[in-house]
């Protein structure tokens, strides 16, 4: 009898452990699922409220349980790997307006302390064939929806967020450069040696980066030897309601930045309907045939307002990063 009891108790404990293990696994699965589902707007409003946990998963709570706190800083923080909730960032580049002023590039280089030899943002001198007009084509990371770079990264150092940004965690990157091999847009750059960014560590008073911890949303600050960098769509700026540096720096209003869900894009001067803009000007994405689904859209270089030749003044075939020394 006694024996039986201990036996059954043991069984019970055994079962309990197994059960709790199962629930734990199931729980992880469920939260993952939930986080995926919640990307879509939910419409049932029965006194419940949707909240995002610190892990970045959406939970539903009764609204009575929620206490409002004014001016809480916590509201602004979000999970770096999940991104800003319910947003999908896109960029539109109007090729008709680009005259290779290169202000975008120098702004990008400056704010990201790019000290290597390869800029994140490049303005290509393009000519499809001999009988078409040449044009200037700025390219950034395309923040693909099917990013080859993310698929091949063995350690999840390159990751895709739900708000559309593809970022790099340069504290995790092992420097295999597989992502660079995989990206068809050649937008990734590598820190072949110690990036000489002395000024970053010196100047602690930079307003933009007042908390000096490196984080995927402050790409390139600081850059780390043996890891990959690339255009990050400036999440540090977006988060504060500002536009990426290239957008604001461009004197010709070439870049439009915005939110696909809001269906608006802006270049700082004018704000337009994203879908209408694409439709009216027959926007396209580069190398769409590859199936990477980029988030950067181009408006064809038709009805050009500017002279291609003028841009040649700024064109340097072998340099995209100005060296200070």
């Amino acid at each position: 009898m006694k024996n039986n009891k201990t036996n059954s108790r043991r069984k019970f404990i055994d079962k309990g452990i197994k059960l709790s293990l199962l629930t734990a696994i199931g729980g992880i699965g469920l939260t993952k699922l939930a986080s995926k589902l919640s990307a879509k707007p939910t419409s049932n409003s029965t006194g419940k409220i949707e909240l995002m946990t610190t892990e970045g998963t959406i939970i539903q709570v009764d609204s009575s349980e929620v206490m409002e706190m004014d001016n809480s800083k916590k509201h602004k923080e979000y999970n770096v790997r999940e991104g800003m909730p319910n947003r999908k960032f896109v960029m539109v580049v109007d090729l008709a307006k680009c005259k290779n002023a290169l202000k975008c590039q120098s702004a990008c280089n400056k704010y990201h302390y790019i000290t290597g030899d390869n800029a994140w943002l490049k303005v290509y001198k393009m000519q499809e064939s001999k009988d078409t007009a040449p044009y200037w084509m700025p390219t950034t990371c395309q923040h693909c929806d099917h990013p080859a770079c993310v698929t091949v990264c063995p350690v999840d150092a390159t990751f895709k967020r739900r708000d559309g940004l593809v970022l790099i965690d340069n504290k995790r990157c092992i420097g295999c450069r597989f992502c660079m091999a995989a990206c068809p847009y050649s937008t990734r750059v590598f820190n072949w040696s110690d990036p000489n960014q002395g000024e970053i560590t010196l100047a602690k008073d930079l307003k933009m980066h007042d908390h000096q911890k490196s984080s995927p949303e402050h790409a390139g600050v600081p850059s780390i030897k043996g890891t990959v960098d690339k255009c990050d769509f400036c999440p540090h700026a977006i988060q504060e309601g500002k536009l990426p540096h290239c957008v604001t720096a461009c004197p010709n209003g070439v870049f439009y930045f915005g939110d696909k869900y809001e269906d608006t894009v802006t270049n700082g001067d004018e704000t337009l309907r994203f879908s209408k803009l694409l439709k009216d000007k027959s926007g396209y994405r580069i190398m769409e045939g590859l199936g990477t689904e980029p988030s950067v859209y181009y408006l064809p270089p038709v009805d050009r307002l500017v002279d291609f030749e003028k841009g040649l003044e700024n064109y340097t075939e072998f340099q995209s990063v100005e060296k200070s020394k």
Partner: protein
Amino acid sequence: MKKYDKLLNDLAPKKFGKLGTIWTISLIVIIIIGIIAYIDQLIKGQVVTNMRDYTLWGIYISNFVFFVATSFVGSVTVAVLRLTKNNWRTPVVRIAEIISLAAIVMAGITIMIDMARPDRLLNLFIHARLQSPITWDVIIIPTYIVLSLLLLYFPLLPDFKILKEYFKDKSPKLSKWYGKLSLNWTGSKAQKAIQTKSIQIIALMIIPVGLILQTIDAWLFSTTYRIGWDSTNMGAYFISGAFVAGVGALITVIYVVRRAYKLEHFITDNHFDKLGKFLVLACLTYLYFNINEYLIPTFTASKEEEIHLNTLISGQYAPLFWFVIIGGLIIPIIVLLFKKGRKPLPMFIIGLVVVIASWWKRYLIVTPTLLHPFLPIQGVPESWHHYFPSIHEWLITIATLAMALLIITLLVRYLPIIPIQRTADEQEELLKNTKNAE
């Protein structure tokens, strides 16, 4: 132990002669130089290589692919010879397994050399993501190493026992080691049964694992969106290429070992003849896949692909490309089709050329593609438009090759290259058969 005496005199591991010592010391020197270069690379970063943002992979990766390919010889010989119970295999299999082991170990090391942050190696386990072919490599390479090691080790057990006895007076130290390694082998029925069974299981396992290894290696490239890599042909192409590289290496090493140890009695011309036929088959298959890889695209190529192919066929890489195709495939096929071509010496030369061509072939798979991205190369220093390995890269790469050779050399030095027990058994059987026939 009487019956082994003659055999042992021929087959027991012997000390190196003068040549062997020089050879080993030179290998060690090369390796030390390579290690120094590698430490320098660690300190200064990958700038010391000539890789840059466009040619982001260079000879390290081609060397890695070469090692992976060469390691396939273990699977092949097992598949073709051990499982089909080919009786001419005995002297060949062990060398194949030694090459295989050395190559796969060096493949693992080489991929780490290419990594810019080897200090973060652990991330590969902590943050492993299954969709990345590199993660599969992390799983499959150690598996293959273990399997190769066991496949080499288990058949050695009886020989270790014999060697323990043999070295008892000559070198008690060696004898002790062999004794430990023999795991108290007595040759009892039960032990033999376990041994046979384990060997069979490993032999069966190593074939799929070898195939997977090659395929993953191919997917490493075909999961990208690059011209010249983004091909469905890759898996089969890599496997057949590995066949060529592996058998080529096997022939070369066998020839050297036979000369160095005077094993002409055991490794006969007949073996070379058979291996030659084997190599022709491999070359023909590989040629077929090469045609698929290069000829078919020339008909259907997009503009980008055409540029890529042109640099191979008639441009910058043409000399190398044609050396690889003609020297590494077509000439071997022609020569080996003749019986005279399958004599040891010509086979050795052919094998050597095949191995060298195989190495360059990997270089041709990796580099030209990277230098032909979809978007033009602009805004980067002039030197980034080309790639030729730097001194550091050469030193390190040569050191890895030397290390592979050193592993082979040491194993050949301390292991009986020709299985003693098996040969004895076989000879006995032969004797019986001839007696019966009389």
